[in-house]
């Protein structure tokens, strides 16, 4: 109160202005998410819970939530039709879908920052049968700390993040990350 009386008005206005700008900056930084936090948690052997994600299906119909897949091992693959490595890894993911779908697991594709028509053509061309969701503006990526394409997050049966692959997946990664989880109970 005394300080406010002593300070001249322009200085007060400047302080309030700078404070507001700093607040905006802090909000921007905090809302941009941090992928490193997830990497660190996984490196320490922890399994952080996956964020609540609700996305529309690429082929229309009711939106799907990650919670719908609770009890299953989920391989959540972020891809886009314009991403060349995504095209290369997709057949492997399709093979793994056939391999794990009867064992309580599922590959789920999330098409990001893509044109619907291009994404559908991609799926048709590569004969992909696993469920596909659509994140048109990439907002769920931030929650998972995903920063590139493709990236894959593996969830255990309790909906916790158990593994993360930045870049295209390969057979050894899927064996290492998925097979032990299939043996776990929910």
């Amino acid at each position, binding site marked *: 109160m005394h300080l406010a009386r002593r300070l*001249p*008005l*322009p200085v007060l*206005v*400047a302080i*309030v*202005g700078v404070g*507001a*700008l700093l607040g*905006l900056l802090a909000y921007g930084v905090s809302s941009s998410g941090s992928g490193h936090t997830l990497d660190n948690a996984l490196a320490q052997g922890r399994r952080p819970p996956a964020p609540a994600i609700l996305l529309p299906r690429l082929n229309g119909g009711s939106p799907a939530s990650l919670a719908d897949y609770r009890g299953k091992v989920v391989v959540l693959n972020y891809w*886009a*039709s*314009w*991403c*060349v490595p995504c095209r290369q890894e997709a057949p492997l993911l399709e093979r793994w879908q056939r391999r794990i779908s009867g064992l309580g697991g599922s590959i789920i594709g999330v098409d990001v*920052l*893509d*044109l*619907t028509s*291009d994404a559908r053509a991609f799926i048709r061309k590569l004969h992909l049968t696993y469920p596909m969701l659509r994140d*048109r*503006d*990439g*907002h769920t990526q931030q929650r998972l700390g995903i920063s590139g*394409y493709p990236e894959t997050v593996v969830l255990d049966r309790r909906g916790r993040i158990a593994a993360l692959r930045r870049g295209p997946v390969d057979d050894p990664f899927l064996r290492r990350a998925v097979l032990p989880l299939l043996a776990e109970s929910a």
Partner: protein
Amino acid sequence: MSRRLAALFVVLAVTGPAAPALAAGCPKTSLPEMENEVMCLVCGVPLALADAPQAQRERAFITRMIGHCRSKDEIKAELVAQYGPRVLALPKASGFRLAAYLVPGLTAVAAAAAIGLVAVRWSRRQRTRSREIVAPTPPPFDPVDTAQLEAELERYRQ
């Protein structure tokens, strides 16, 4: 064969003049104009500055829309339907995005107010100083002069 040619001639005669008329009716939307108003979402820069694969797809989509005679607003609406509102270079003036318009405006107003206040105070100070220069305090009277003056005044009082 000649019938087919005749049919083709008839079709061209009917649609030929219509095509330029249709093109003339198209809204004047150009790719460079659109590129400055939408973003490449992967790169985080306006489309005009981007060359990423996603940007190329976006560009091809806009070109297709222009070819379909869509106006700038219609193309923007299509892009928002495909990529969400973040695709627009200028955000909508609602919710937190309103800050993009309010913060610069309020900052400018606050800066103008601060400059005005400083200017008013400075001019007041200058005025006070100038008064001080125009009307300096007179030096004290010399006691001898004072006594002499008093004596002369006494003479008049009598």
